[in-house]
């Protein structure tokens, strides 16, 4: 018999205090030992791969966008806009992420430029998400600390389904951008955005509103919503793949552990998906060593493989464990997928893990 504990995922609630008391905040995390020489090689920055990938991405956006324009008014435009939407609303997510870490390019201004560009496409306010994501890396899937937990326990099924097309995200972003343009942050945001950075949040929100007003004015002037098919709407109709990828990262796995091998998921993907996702399928590796650029993650994976749980063989294999886990969590929020580590690996801080694992039912 297990006891269900109600979780408070807000950053200013009881679980935030509890995480602090349990030593889960800004704690030391497990990482595999890698010789310094090898680690230095893996961390090296290059401009070449990201320039190549960005040129391909922008060219595909231009080609599919042109196809949509050319066939506008006929059914033939649909596949072009499906492709354009994915490139705009989903592929931008991995570009936002990598440039936010400053690891996409060696040249810093290229990272900064891509970060602003991809943030806009991805409906992630740049400064807000820079700090949110720093917190996600400090306190990964720690309840009351990490605001980027997608699948809470129990999961909000309606929200998850509606959000396949980014509808819930869009509503949240509209409210958030208007609030920020008015010069206000929420009580939660104040906990992770330093005062010295808050003016950036406000200015970015005002710039976004200005861009959207121009696009809407253009659509009204031209008497067509075609401009919105290129800017704005693809963040919704093209968002599904970003969510498909994002759920593979942590959904269904343990909360409140200090070991990314237990709360993150590495999934093997084919080269096309890895291009679209910029190798974030190596997600345990990314969390363990966030300074390793995306193009070096396959090499990092080879270094760590013996110390990691067996990766999921495909995204379908990942969803075969995620969906049943989320369905079970609807009625049993204490359930989670317990990762098996290789026999040679030792759990980090088993004292903490024992607290988390006690009484957790298994399939």
């Amino acid at each position, binding site marked *: 018999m297990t006891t269900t504990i109600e979780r408070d995922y807000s950053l200013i609630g009881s679980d935030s205090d509890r995480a602090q008391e349990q030593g889960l905040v800004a704690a030391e995390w497990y990482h595999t030992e890698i010789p310094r020489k090898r680690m230095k090689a893996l961390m090296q920055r290059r401009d070449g791969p990201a320039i190549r990938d960005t040129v391909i991405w922008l060219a595909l956006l231009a080609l599919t966008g042109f196809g949509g324009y050319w066939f506008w008014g006929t059914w033939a435009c649909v596949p072009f806009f499906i492709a354009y939407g994915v490139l705009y609303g989903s592929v931008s997510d991995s570009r936002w992420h990598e440039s936010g870490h*400053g690891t996409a390019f060696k040249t810093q201004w290229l990272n900064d430029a891509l970060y602003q560009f991809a943030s806009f496409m991805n409906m992630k306010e740049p400064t807000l998400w*820079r700090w949110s994501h*720093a917190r996600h890396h400090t306190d990964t899937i720690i309840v009351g600390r990490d605001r980027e937990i997608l699948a809470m326990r129990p999961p909000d099924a309606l929200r998850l389904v509606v959000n396949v097309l980014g509808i819930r995200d869009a509503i949240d972003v509209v409210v958030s951008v208007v609030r920020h343009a008015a010069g206000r942050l929420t009580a939660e945001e104040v906990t992770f955005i330093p005062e010295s*950075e808050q003016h950036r949040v406000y200015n970015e929100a005002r710039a976004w509103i200005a861009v959207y007003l121009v696009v809407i004015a253009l659509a009204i002037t031209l008497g067509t919503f075609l401009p919105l098919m290129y800017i704005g709407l693809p963040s919704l109709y093209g968002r599904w793949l970003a969510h498909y990828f994002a759920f593979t990262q942590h959904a269904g796995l343990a909360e409140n552990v200090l070991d990314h091998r237990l709360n993150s998921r590495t999934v093997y993907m084919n080269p096309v998906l890895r291009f679209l996702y910029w190798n974030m399928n190596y997600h345990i590796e990314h969390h363990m060593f*966030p300074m390793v650029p995306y193009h070096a993650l396959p090499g990092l994976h080879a270094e760590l493989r013996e110390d990691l749980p067996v990766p999921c063989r495909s995204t379908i294999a990942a969803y075969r464990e995620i969906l049943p886990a989320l369905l079970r969590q609807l009625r049993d929020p204490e359930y989670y997928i317990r990762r098996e580590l290789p026999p040679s690996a030792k759990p980090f801080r088993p004292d903490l893990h024992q607290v988390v694992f006690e009484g957790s039912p298994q399939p």
Partner: protein
Amino acid sequence: MTGEGWVRACEVEDIELEDVIRFDHAGRTFAIYRSPDDTFHATDGLCTHERAQLAEGLVMGDIIECPKHNGRFDYKTGEVKRRPACVDLRIYPVSVEGSAVFVQLG
């Protein structure tokens, strides 16, 4: 090396060009750098953002990048170069005598 506060930190050959090592002394932790042009430098060892060990980070020219959140500093001046780091690093005088690297911590 004589004089107030000077401490022998390491040997020259302990650090590769364009790299960093950790140096602990009297309960404190420091980072000792060897630049690409073969000069030596020292800063506090922990990132001013969330106290990660900078010696596990990446040296790129005059820049040290924190291994945890990728914040960056100029290790010669201590100046922040990239968020999420917002507070400059403290730097320390360094002197090389023969094969030894000394840091003035006083």
